[in-house]
């Protein structure tokens, strides 16, 4: 008998806007000692499935419309709440995505890790705390005795996620629901956490439902894979069969649209190249393979052969030169006290980019890559060093003379939700930079320009009067691209601009950036923590660590023949789907 058996589960959200079928007839099961990977894009219903199992969804608006979840002979969906509470945190525990927001900031780590024991077992506080500290050591929290009484904000992201895992494991559960447990973490930390989960499966026979949008992670950790799309399971099977020989067009598209170290495509395939969707009148969705999918893929492959790499020929004069760049931040301090400490975010960095090329900047969180991007644009104050842009040292320019350069250099931020003003229509948002720089003579000319830009990024004139909240994440990032293009820049800083996106959307935005680069001869500084994406986009790559450049070279050199240990460690930590 399987450990947990989900049959025909249906969870709908009923709101004023209508009914959303978040989970629509999902069935799968999990055995003891098995890791089942549930993969899908945002909105595919994978998290909602997990939350439904433990009854954690706010009802209303959520409502379980049907199905059963059998665990240990009981249907979890029908269990009265005291009995369900006895299972939650004791026999089935959950690891949540964001360790920052999922730990209570007002309570100590120890308090929170020991809490499940105190809730479910009849032990003294000391015993519970002892066991909590044991478990924290086991998941790799160093100095657990000393650090246990810290508050969550005193822990780093990786440490917090480990505390979260310790909290889930401390009662020796039979089943762990891990909802994107490593998404917020750096690759090296992620690799360690995946190891912990695999050890648990092997040593204690724990079953794990591992939810992720990252196919690489799923390939590395899971025994079986369930692929979800729009609330439905589109394919399930062993990890090899899914990755080596997918049968569903959506899965094929998902696998193809993700850049890997081996990707040779110049323009990435997208899910739309494979999949056609049709909505039936009753709201259910039909998914079909495109008849011309093979032809489309062949066309993309042909472009690699003929297109080659057109930008390599003789454009080697440096366009942007950064010399000995330093940015230090001092924290604390005030009228009567000295500054507490200096953080050397960027500490002596040299870089150069040639016109029309892309320089990739990779590194783990906190390594200073974002600060470099902002320092080049003078969005932060430089402590020392020079930024020579087209033979002018921007570091010396008084703010009044910066304006013409602001027109030439633009930035696309990571979070397209936060970087568009929710109270401006798209038209207003795109016209604003033109006004600032006095481009286009009048309102109607600007408006025409906006329409042109929207079409260039794949949106249309119908979108002009809408507000940002009416767009999806991918569309918003396109808007951000359009906004930065409004002033006709030559140089773009892309700061983690696809990190928040699903792979299928990511492919579209990457393709867009590529096309624009070729059409407008743009120069990119492409900042990302994702090594595969950087490899896909860049001609040259700089690997950063703790405010310095660890290694610098052409993209192929870095990936095929890394010189520094750190680069090698980074590359090794990237989960890959190779069997």
């Amino acid at each position, binding site marked *: 008998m399987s450990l947990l058996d989900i049959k025909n589960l249906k969870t709908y959200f009923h709101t004023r806007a209508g009914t959303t079928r978040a989970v629509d007839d999902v069935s799968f099961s999990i055995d003891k000692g098995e890791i089942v990977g549930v993969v899908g894009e945002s909105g595919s219903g994978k998290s909602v499935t997990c939350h439904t199992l433990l009854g954690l969804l706010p009802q209303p608006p959520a409502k379980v419309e049907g199905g059963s979840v059998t665990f240990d002979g009981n249907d979890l969906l029908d269990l009265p709440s005291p009995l369900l509470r006895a299972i939650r945190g004791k026999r089935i525990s959950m690891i*949540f995505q964001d360790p920052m927001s999922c730990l209570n*900031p007002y309570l100590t780590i120890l308090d929170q890790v020991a809490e499940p024991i105190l809730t479910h077992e009849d032990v003294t506080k000391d015993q519970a705390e002892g066991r909590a500290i044991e478990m924290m050591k086991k998941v790799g929290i160093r100095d657990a005795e000393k650090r246990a009484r810290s508050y969550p904000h005193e822990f780093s992201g990786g440490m917090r996620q480990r505390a979260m895992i310790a909290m889930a494991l401390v009662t020796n559960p039979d089943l762990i629901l891990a909802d994107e447990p490593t998404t917020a973490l750096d690759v090296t930390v992620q690799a360690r956490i995946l190891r912990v989960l695999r050890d648990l499966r092997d040593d204690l026979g724990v079953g794990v439902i591992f939810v992720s949008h990252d196919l690489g992670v799923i390939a590395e950790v899971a025994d079986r894979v369930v692929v979800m799309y729009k609330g439905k399971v589109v394919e399930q099977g062993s990890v090899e069969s899914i990755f080596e020989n997918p049968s569903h067009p959506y899965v094929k598209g998902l696998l193809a649209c993700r850049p890997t170290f081996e990707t040779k495509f110049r323009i990435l395939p997208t899910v739309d190249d494979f999949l056609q969707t049709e909505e039936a009148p009753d709201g259910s969705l039909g998914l079909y393979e495109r008849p011309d999918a093979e032809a489309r893929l062949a066309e993309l492959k042909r472009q690699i052969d003929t297109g080659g790499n057109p930008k390599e020929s003789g454009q080697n004069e440096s366009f942007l030169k950064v010399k000995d760049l330093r940015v230090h931040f001092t924290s604390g301090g005030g009228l009567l*006290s000295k500054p507490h400490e200096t953080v050397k975010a960027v500490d002596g960095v040299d870089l150069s980019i040639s016109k029309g090329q892309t320089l990739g900047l990779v590194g783990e969180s906190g390594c200073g890559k974002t600060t470099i991007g902002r320092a080049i644009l003078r969005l932060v104050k430089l402590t020392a060093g020079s930024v020579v842009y087209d033979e002018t040292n921007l570091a010396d320019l008084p703010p009044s003379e910066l304006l013409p350069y602001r027109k030439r250099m633009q930035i696309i931020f990571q979070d397209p939700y936060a970087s568009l003003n929710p109270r401006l229509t798209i038209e207003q948002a795109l016209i604003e930079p033109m006004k600032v720089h006095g481009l286009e003579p009048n309102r109607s000319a600007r408006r025409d320009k906006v329409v042109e830009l929207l079409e260039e990024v794949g949106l249309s004139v119908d979108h002009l009067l809408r507000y940002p909240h009416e767009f999806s994440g991918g569309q918003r990032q396109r808007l951000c691209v359009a906004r930065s293009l409004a002033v006709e820049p030559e140089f773009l800083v892309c700061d983690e601009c696809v990190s928040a996106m699903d792979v299928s959307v990511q492919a579209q935005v990457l393709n867009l950036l590529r096309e624009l680069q070729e059409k407008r001869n743009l120069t990119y500084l492409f900042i990302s923590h994702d090594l595969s994406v950087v490899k896909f986009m860049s001609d040259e790559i700089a690997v950063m660590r703790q405010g310095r450049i660890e290694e610098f070279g052409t993209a192929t050199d870095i990936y095929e023949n890394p010189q520094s240990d750190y680069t090698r460690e980074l590359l090794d930590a990237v989960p890959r789907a190779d069997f």
Partner: protein
Amino acid sequence: MLRFITYRLLQGIIVLIALYTITFFLIKAMPGDPFTGEKNIAEETKQLMREKYGLNESVFHQYFLYLKNVFTEGSLGISTSKAHSVNEMIGQSFPVSCILGLTALSFAIGLGVPIGVASAVRKNSWIDYSGMALAMVGICVPAFTVGPLLQIMLSMKIPLFNVAGWETPRDVILPAITLGLVTTAYIARLTRSGMLEILSQDYIRTAHAKGLPVSRVVCKHALRGGLLPAVAYIGPAFAALISGSFIVETIFQVPGMGQHFVNATKARDPFLLQGVVLFFGLLIVIMNLAADILTGFLNPRVRLDQE
């Protein structure tokens, strides 16, 4: 911690000096002086009086003299209208206001916090709606309506309390309710919105996933964070409550401090006015500091920033 308190107290002194300066020059800008009135006083007598209170000196001399007296002797001057020392007058009336204010605040917290928590936990239920309707009434209905209503209901129709006066301990109850009603309403609303925000946080879901009963989730995981907005409000609100209310004192015949604010202004009594304003400012500074310390106690993230 000690450094934080010293720093804030120094800041407070600057605030108080600024407050004094503004008050002083506003009083000087008023037409007339303490001795212009309906009564016909001989010009010579007025001149003598001005000399006695040092009001014939230059404006700047007066400004610095008062400041010097405050700092060196702690003296807030002599009231020109009552011919008593301002210190003594505050000393007599403040304890009364303080007891009244404390009772009002206890009432406000004791009633406001539970209403706020219950409304947030049972959001959009009849508890929420009636709690918030009550709070709205508390904010909207002025003290000069609530006071007499209470007097009619609880003193005249059902003779539980004295209508007015300040003799027995029971006399504090009706004015305290009248005084604390607005504060209760604000605390209830702030607690509700604070709790609602915390209850929608991811870590509350984590707490549920651990299998904790709802009461534990609310009391242990949500309450500390949920109370923060209310705590920030309670500091200055407390200062306002214990410094007296002219309206409530008049309705219930309570010899508190609130009367001085109004009487001093009416009598153009510069020293009494400056004295009570400064004293009130000092209370605000101290209560804000207390609220900040309490916030630090509740919120570990703030605690770290201060050190």
